């Protein structure tokens, strides 16, 4: 045993505890015990993650390995779970959201935590089986969460779509992994690496990788597997949407990083072209799709598709550049996305979650409007916000392999995205509301979270501490 395993164990324990506590006061659906237990527990685990040594490696039973890199990923997952819990809190109160109140608070937090355990397993995987089980554990809870608005037909549609498409993807993944197993004759990464080095052109490997790209591409919302995203983003409750947009997407891209810069590194050269094509198609599909949206969360869905395109583009970079740029960007992306979803939650309390609900914000709630502007600028990659450096690093990873034309293409795509991010800013600042509406109310918790996220968006772009740390850990 090693200290490095503690976060994973504690997280598992926390999930069980939250469920158990919920059983204790099953009669009182509004009790806040599970909420406080969840967020304190997650915060403590985050503190533990920060305190662990990042220069050591520990392998457990040959198939579960914890290194500095996986600890970095775990930080991200814990933060994402933490903010999801905070974001979800008002949804369990009456009047917290226009669509109605959610029930089963304890289960909700428990499911979020168990999904995070699955993500922990993905980033600590030492063989294909752990990778697969982790991926499933990270996905299946989300099917439940997507339909959490039980009586809302849009939520049911979203959950149905998600589970059907997701199961199909699971099938693909299992099929692909079995090809890899066939090529290597074993499940562990070391054997797979040897097999890939010995015969990088083997059709078995190629087929396997194709299926895996399709399966993980579904979770990452790569074109042409992205169709479900806008519907699910719009149908699921906002905290779930945020969790899917951040954690699930991060798991998928890290899954690719682990495979393509680990056991399948020998195939990396031949994978660059297909990956770039997918990335280019994905960002274009996302950006063009977002242009005509009027519902905020559908819009965020398309924006997230475009962001997935930029992330995929960085996969073609050399190992260190790809890992560091993607990890940095994921954190930046998480901060901006959570800020956006907190804003949507605030707007959605008693208005429809549509563009026009933002009108007049610049005059009525100047603070919120400023946060909205900063968030959109960070998503659009405008300095000095963190999104700028994030995109710079992603594109630099592709440029390092000489794909300058792709960089131009992606940067122009990012210009298109700026158009629709500015549309939101325009709604908030320039367009006048058609009728007088009461001011938006912001709860203290939401205010604190938005302040934290805004600080993160600004600080990550100016303060080199985090990115330097990532570089040292990867070295």
């Amino acid at each position, binding site marked *: 045993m090693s200290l490095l395993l503690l976060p994973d164990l504690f997280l598992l324990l926390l999930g069980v505890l939250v469920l158990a506590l919920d059983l204790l006061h099953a009669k009182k659906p509004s009790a806040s015990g599970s909420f406080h237990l969840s967020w304190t527990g997650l915060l403590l685990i985050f503190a533990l993650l920060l305190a662990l040594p990042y220069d050591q490696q520990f392998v457990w039973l040959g198939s579960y390995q914890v290194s500095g890199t996986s600890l970095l990923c775990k930080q991200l997952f814990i933060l994402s779970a933490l903010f999801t819990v905070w974001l979800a809190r008002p949804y369990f109160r009456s009047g917290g959201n226009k669509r109605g109140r959610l029930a089963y608070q304890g289960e909700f937090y428990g499911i979020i935590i168990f999904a995070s355990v699955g993500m922990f397993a993905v980033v600590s995987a030492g063989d294909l089986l752990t990778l697969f089980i982790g991926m499933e554990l990270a996905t299946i809870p989300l099917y439940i969460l997507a339909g959490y608005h039980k009586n809302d037909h849009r939520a049911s549609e979203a959950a149905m779509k998600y589970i059907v498409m997701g199961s199909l993807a699971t099938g693909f993944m299992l099929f692909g992994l079995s090809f890899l197993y066939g090529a290597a004759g074993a499940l562990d990464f070391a054997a797979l690496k040897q097999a890939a080095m010995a015969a990088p052109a083997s059709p078995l490997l190629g087929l396997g990788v194709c299926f895996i790209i399709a399966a993980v591409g579904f979770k990452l919302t790569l074109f042409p597997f992205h169709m479900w995203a806008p519907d699910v983003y719009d149908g699921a409750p906002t905290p779930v949407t945020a969790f899917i947009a951040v954690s699930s997407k991060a798991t998928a891209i890290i899954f690719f990083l682990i495979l393509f810069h680990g056991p399948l590194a020998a195939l990396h050269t031949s994978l660059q072209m297909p990956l770039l094509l997918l990335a280019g198609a994905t960002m274009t599909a996302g950006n063009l799709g977002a242009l005509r949206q009027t519902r905020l969360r559908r819009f965020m869905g398309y924006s997230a598709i475009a962001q997935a395109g930029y992330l995929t583009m960085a996969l073609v970079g050399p190992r260190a550049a790809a890992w560091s740029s993607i990890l940095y960007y994921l954190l930046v992306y998480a901060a901006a996305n959570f800020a956006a979803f907190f804003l949507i939650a605030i707007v959605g309390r008693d208005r429809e979650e549509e563009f026009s609900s933002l009108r007049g914000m610049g005059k009525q709630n100047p603070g919120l409007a400023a946060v909205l502007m900063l968030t959109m600028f960070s998503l659009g990659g405008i300095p000095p916000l963190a999104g700028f450096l994030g995109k710079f690093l992603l594109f630099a990873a592709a*440029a390092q392999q000489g794909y300058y034309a792709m*960089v131009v293409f992606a940067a122009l795509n990012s210009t298109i995205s700026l158009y629709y991010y500015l549309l939101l*800013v325009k709604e908030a600042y320039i367009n006048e509301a058609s009728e007088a509406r009461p001011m938006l109310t912001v709860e203290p918790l939401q205010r604190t979270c938005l302040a934290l996220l805004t600080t993160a968006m600004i600080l990550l772009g100016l303060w080199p501490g985090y990115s330097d740390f990532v570089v040292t850990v990867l070295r």
Partner: protein
Amino acid sequence: MNGPLLLTTIWLLPFITGLAILPLNRDAHQKIKQISLLGNGLNLLLIIFLLLRFIDSAPTMPPGSHASHFLFAYRTAWFSILNIEYNIGVDAISVLMMLLTGIVIVCGILASWPLEKQSKEFFILLNVLVGGVYGVFVSLDLFTFFLFYEVAVLPMYLLIGLWGTGKKEYAAMKLTLMLVAGSAFIFAGILALYFESGLQSFDLSRLALIRFPLAFQLWAFPLIFTGFAVLGAMFPFHTWSPDGHASAPTAVSMLHAGVLMKLGGYGCLRVAIYLLPEGAQFWLPFFLVLVTINVLYGAFCAIRQTDLKYITAYSSVSHCGLVLFGFAAMTFAGLKGAVLQMVSHGLMTALFFCLIGMIYSRTHTREVDDMGGLMKVMPFLSVAFVIAGLAGLGLPGLSGFVAEVNIFVGAYANPATLNRICTVLAVLSIVVTAVYMLRAVNSLVGGPLAGRFALLTDASLLERAPVTILLACLFGMGILPGWIIKLVDNAVHPIFNNMMR
């Protein structure tokens, strides 16, 4: 105060001013303006101090030197992830551009004193914009250069969209998207420089010593040059400029046409031409044709306009074309003239937009045909307008003359036939300029006074201040251009020698 600290203070001060406005009450309009004026006025003094120190300590460069000499240079690691450094320093061009920025922003704040609508946001954004502009001029690291460049471009969207007039939302979006699309090219170009140099460094002065392979320069140069030239309003990428300038509020038009467009020219010179000289040699004749179109097309378009702001905006397209024209001439005098034109046009166009703003606030129209005889009711503004018009058509004794003479002489000095033809064509633009300038000036100040304008008042003392400052600068540069030319000579030599290596 040591040099690097001075430079850092200068770019940081506008941001600090913006922060100082942040906690103020939204209705404390006077206080907001006073703080902005104080911050930027102080900054102008600092820049003048910087200029004096620069003149004092600048060594006279031997005409044969290749490496640009940056004074007050300082560097320290920032983001180790891509060897990004905080690397600052100035040469004469940047100091002059900073001086221009300082003058224009102070005048701009004075000119927007009557503004009451959401003044807090307005002045914060204005300060962010100016901070970005200063940042570009002091940066010697391509990453920070690009970062500040974007910082300077983006506030424009809200500044035009929220406080503008006319088709403001359309104009704001068009301007922002075109400029950001331009920076997409710059972005790729900068990354290419970083990796192809083999240095893994964004350091401008180290990159300048690298002789990039010709094949690389041939595609990288047009990429970067075009990217910057979008902001320099090069044909056919100039279409954002008339709409943007016409819709923007006074101070923003002043700053944008006066300073921001110069960032385009500055970037072309500092990054594209300085780092990729062989590419420049190959491509500049092609760009020469484009900018000749610029110069003529802008002037001819201005003739057909009836809105004062559109006239000035198209004349800006034409005059900014002259900046790029000077670069494309590929002679020493041409480069020098281009730099002078950047300063001269900045002052002149700032004065124009400042005056138009003041006149518009009285007459509530910008249509030339609706006005007339304004000399009778507002002599001060009218005389200033006449002088600005004369500066625009290059009258000796005013700044425009110094710059244009250098550009045209420089362009003709290049013996290539294409250059000769283009120069002759571009010189013709002066005639066209005279047509639209004199026509506009004449119908504005001359003729009978319309009855509804009879009760208008002349400029108040507060309004006279920015106009006087800008007029003084126009005359100063026109009558005593010697010291500026000497400074510019020093800075242009290494760039020119690099281009001809």
